[in-house]
């Protein structure tokens, strides 16, 4: 009980805050740890900035375009489909 109490009271250091950020973004933190992290973020510019950079990193990861599909590659795959269709009959 005492330990719980002190754990709740104890403020995070930046190193620990940074380690919790993916759990935070994944909504995987307990309510008390979430509150501790948010309290820390509210007071710490460095960690607040770090979280912003993690979000930006995720945004950039989601924006990378894959290589274009070449017509040859597409036709090659479609040819597989046509061959299968012929083998099994048009009714599938």
């Amino acid at each position, binding site marked *: 009980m005492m330990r719980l109490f002190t754990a709740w009271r104890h403020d995070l*250091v*930046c*190193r*620990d805050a*940074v*380690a919790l*950020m*993916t*759990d*935070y*973004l*994944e*909504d*995987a933190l307990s309510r008390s740890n979430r509150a501790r992290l948010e309290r820390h973020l509210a007071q*710490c*510019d*460095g*960690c607040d*900035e*770090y979280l*912003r*950079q*993690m*979000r*930006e*990193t*995720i*945004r*950039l*990861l*989601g*924006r*990378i*375009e*894959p*290589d*274009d*599909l070449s017509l040859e*590659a*597409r036709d*090659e*795959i*479609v040819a*597989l*489909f*046509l061959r*299968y*269709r012929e083998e099994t009959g*048009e*009714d*599938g």
Partner: protein
Amino acid sequence: MIEPAFRPRVTLSWRQRAVRGARPALHDQPTLTPVPGADESELVARLCAGDELAFAELVERYHPSMVRVASAFTPNRSVAEEAVQDAWIGVIRGVCRFEGRSSLKTWIFRILVNRAKTAGTREPRTVELGTGDDLGGDRFSAGGAWADPPVPWTDEVVDRIVAPEVAALVREAIAQLPDLQRQVVTLRDVEGLSSADVREMLDLSEGNQRVLLHRGRTRVRAALEKAMREKG
């Protein structure tokens, strides 16, 4: 991409989809539920009927991403392309049995990841979670506070580094990740698949997946920070 903090609970939507899929048929309820895969049932029906145009459309939609995903499992481009081709054969053979329990994309990627796992490094896979925070210990003081705090750069991404340069940088950072980190980051952040789907595909526990995701994102962020610092 949705801001992660506000991303709808992925496990819930996954479960919802599973429940929906258990119902008799997806296309029996066309307007009532805005199922993400609702427009897919028509596509699936066409594919199953052997519609060449529908298949070409599918290939155009997913093939480029599939090559990218397969490349997360093997550094060899031709091995990756072979895995993708294998996956397409699996899709062609199995599409009539697709029941809409997941989105079509998830179903296809599941087939692909299975092929890519076997095609990729044949060495036994170990869960290399990596060590340390990849930030460098000297970023923090002995007490754990920032000694070398992050310098803001997010507002300057567009201004200081032109978009293709950022893309190249991020791609390179992904390529440099340890295998499992690269696979998790690619499936989750690049392709936007749910945590539940990725855990299942890679056979990872929830905790391990999050650790891998965290380490991977941390390294990519560090690569971006490094580039920004070098720039000026």
